[in-house]
């Protein structure tokens, strides 16, 4: 069906082109700072050419070989997953090259190619079985995984179903053909010039040795020898024993009883059409869902090797690509060094895979609401930039870079880091805002809460030792300098004016060097109190509904 293939290819091409356009136009970054599409396209072209014909080419080739073909990164992270994926990769990929593209690939390399001859007969089944085993292994691993991390959402079952169906119909087709009398008749008519008398022994041979099913009665064993001779001269050169198809053949045994009704229903034709249709659907589906990883993952891995550092304009495109190239494997989640926080915060967006999903929604602009933005912000700022997710990603996504871009984008959306957010208003303004909002989190029983306990700060005598040894105060000059020195903060607590302390610059500029606490003659835990104020401020500011306008200029 050439028109079918053309249609599928057209859909695939359009879809992929659409994807590429998205990679070049969509951005994680703030629209205002992002370069225009024309600049990005030009940069991509020059960048790609520069990489392909430049000094980074060997690294890109190596990446292709090691990371795409051998999947070294996955091997290093998780052997079991590597095994499963490699089985699918080799199995399905092999089938695609050797079987689907036999006209372009196999026949050119082996001019004597014939699909029903070994090694192609058992090879197809082997590759198919490998792919099926890989799929089964992924399902088993998923079912028995004891991870406490949330499972990635939005599993692409369409993709899995397509792959499984293609494999299944492939086996069934071969099985059906093995027992299909109509096919036998057709083949004999097309490829031989046997007379009816010669056909009879052949049928006997095929029924006995090759598993064919004929509606007639049991074969006459006497004709077997003759049949074998006929077979040798007319068929054997193109037909290896179907038992070599070690999956399809047993399958055909199971279907044997239904051979006649299957033949009547033109089962092999139906299955063939179905099989081809599914393959065409697969091609058309390439730009969508999980199928895209076939194109996007190698692109990402090769681009990772070829990327110029420091990141150029193309980094924007790479970020956009990353959002589609992510295969939701969750290996980043397993490596995340603050993974334990997701349960504590009840926020899966602490974890890289979910966070990436959040970034994707953010980059599509209107799809994200204030609550989601807050959740995404919490996830973004819980991240410690340790880079483990990046080092663990089997498709070479530069997650480090993505999270940095996310933070910049959040800042421009009015959700900057807490320390930056504080700067948007003075301490008095924050005090008013926080007092006006919901109030205290008294219900939260937080161990170590210091600022509620007068014993902690009441014996401060305002000697100013803490202020004198504070490096932040020492280097803070000018009008924008520190607004409340450490001893002033203690005084605010003594006066019961904690809210005023929450938004003070001192609390957020403190380097936690502990000089104040070490020197205090009254033994006051000055730094621990400042930490406590930060924690309180963070919780209360996060609860504030309104989004801040970005700070103009930089107050110290």
């Amino acid at each position: 069906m050439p028109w079918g293939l053309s249609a599928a290819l057209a859909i695939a091409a359009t879809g992929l082109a659409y994807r590429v356009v998205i990679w070049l136009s969509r951005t994680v970054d703030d629209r205002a700072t992002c370069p225009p599409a024309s600049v990005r396209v030009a940069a991509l072209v020059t960048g790609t050419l520069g990489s392909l014909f430049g000094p980074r080419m060997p690294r890109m080739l190596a990446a292709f070989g090691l990371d795409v073909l051998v999947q070294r990164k996955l091997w290093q992270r998780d052997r079991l997953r590597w095994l499963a994926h490699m089985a699918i990769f080799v199995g399905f990929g092999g089938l695609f090259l050797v079987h689907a593209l036999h006209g372009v690939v196999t026949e050119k390399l082996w001019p004597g190619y014939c699909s029903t001859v070994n090694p192609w007969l058992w090879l197809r089944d082997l590759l198919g079985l490998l792919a099926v085993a890989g799929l089964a292994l992924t399902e088993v691993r998923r079912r028995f995984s004891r991870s406490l991390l949330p499972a990635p959402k939005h599993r692409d079952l369409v993709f899995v179903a397509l792959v499984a169906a293609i494999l299944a119909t492939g086996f069934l087709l071969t099985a059906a053909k093995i027992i299909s009398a109509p096919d036998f008749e057709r083949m004999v008519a097309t490829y031989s010039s046997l007379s009816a008398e010669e056909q009879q022994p052949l049928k006997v041979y095929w029924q006995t040795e090759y598993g064919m099913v004929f509606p007639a009665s049991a074969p006459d064993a006497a004709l077997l020898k003759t049949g074998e001779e006929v077979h040798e001269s007319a068929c054997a050169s193109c037909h290896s024993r179907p038992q070599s198809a070690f999956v399809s053949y047993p399958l055909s045994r199971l279907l044997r009883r239904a051979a006649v009704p299957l033949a009547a229903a033109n089962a092999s034709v139906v299955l063939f059409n179905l099989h081809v249709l599914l393959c065409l659907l697969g091609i058309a589906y390439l730009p969508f869902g999980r199928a895209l990883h076939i194109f996007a993952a190698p692109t990402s891995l090769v681009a990772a090797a070829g990327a110029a550092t420091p990141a150029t304009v193309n980094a924007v495109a790479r970020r956009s690509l990353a959002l589609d190239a992510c295969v939701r494997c969750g290996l980043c989640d397993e490596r995340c060094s603050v993974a334990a926080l997701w349960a504590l915060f009840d926020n899966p967006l602490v974890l890289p895979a979910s966070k990436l999903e959040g970034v994707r929604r953010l980059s599509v602009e209107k799809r994200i609401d204030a609550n989601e933005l807050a959740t995404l912000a919490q996830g973004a700022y819980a991240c410690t930039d340790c880079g483990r997710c990046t080092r663990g990603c089997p498709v070479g996504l530069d997650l480090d870079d993505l999270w940095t871009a996310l933070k910049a984008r959040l800042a421009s959306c009015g959700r900057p880091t807490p320390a930056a957010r504080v700067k948007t208003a003075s301490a008095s303004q924050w005090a008013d805002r926080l007092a006006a909002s919901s109030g205290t989190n008294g219900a939260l029983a937080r161990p170590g809460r210091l600022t509620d306990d007068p014993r902690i700060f009441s014996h401060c005598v305002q000697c100013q030792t803490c202020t004198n040894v504070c490096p932040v105060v020492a280097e803070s000059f000018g009008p924008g300098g520190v607004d409340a020195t450490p001893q002033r903060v203690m005084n605010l607590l003594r006066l019961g004016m904690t809210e005023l302390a929450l938004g003070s610059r001192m609390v957020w500029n403190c380097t936690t060097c502990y000089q104040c606490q070490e020197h205090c003659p009254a033994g006051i835990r000055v730094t621990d109190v400042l930490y406590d104020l930060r924690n309180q401020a963070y919780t209360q500011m996060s609860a504030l509904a309104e989004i801040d306008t970005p700070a103009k200029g930089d107050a110290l």
Partner: protein
Amino acid sequence: MKFALFVGCKIPARVPQYERAARSVLGRLGVELIDLDFDCCGYPSRHLRLDAYLALACRNLAKASARHLDVLTLCQCCYGSLRHALHLLRHEPGVRLAVAQDLAKDDLDLSETTNVRHLLDILARDVGFDRIRANVVRDQHRLRVAAHYGCHALRPSDVVDLDNPHAPTVFEDLIRATGAAAIDWPRRLDCCGAPIAETNPALSARLREVKLADARAAGADTMCTACPYCEAQLSPAAKDAGLSTLLYPQVLGLALGIAPAKLGL
């Protein structure tokens, strides 16, 4: 001498040479290092929420104690963070209870005790100066080193335990053990500014500037640190200040005759 090595987040991401040098040096001096699957020490989370910080820190303590190992940290922020968690666990019953419930979900518990040590501490007290000096083959007499102690290993001294917080000598002693000269400089105990590098870059840069200038004025040619945050903060500006930076295991490694490549140099 066997410890669970706590590498932390900052070193693999930004200062991998520290780990490499530390492993080489500790290996040469007979300290065995066990690698456990640690989480973040919790230090970056402490300024957001105390419970988040404790959740992370205590998981690590539980993992180490399950294997009956003390923790050896390379980063001083990790050291301070884990020590603080230990301190809170030991002295505030409410904390212990809350944390225990949290850990139980992951089949972790804190029934055993563990201790947390820093690299400098281990070298000075467990390995000892005699052993270090006995292994020195290449005296580093050409180096004039300003030791940057960092903050979180010295203070607050009821939580951490490296040396006298007002007049420490251990880092200079360790430097002299390599044959290098240890310079006395006024700002040696001051903060390098790393913790506010992202939130207040201007102030952070000033803190760094005055430290480097002070070390240079005191006659040093090298600034020596024992923390990746300090190293990452000081080294970009060091050259302009006329100094080079080295991590202590790199200096020690050179003195022990280990190849520079194995020290990340």
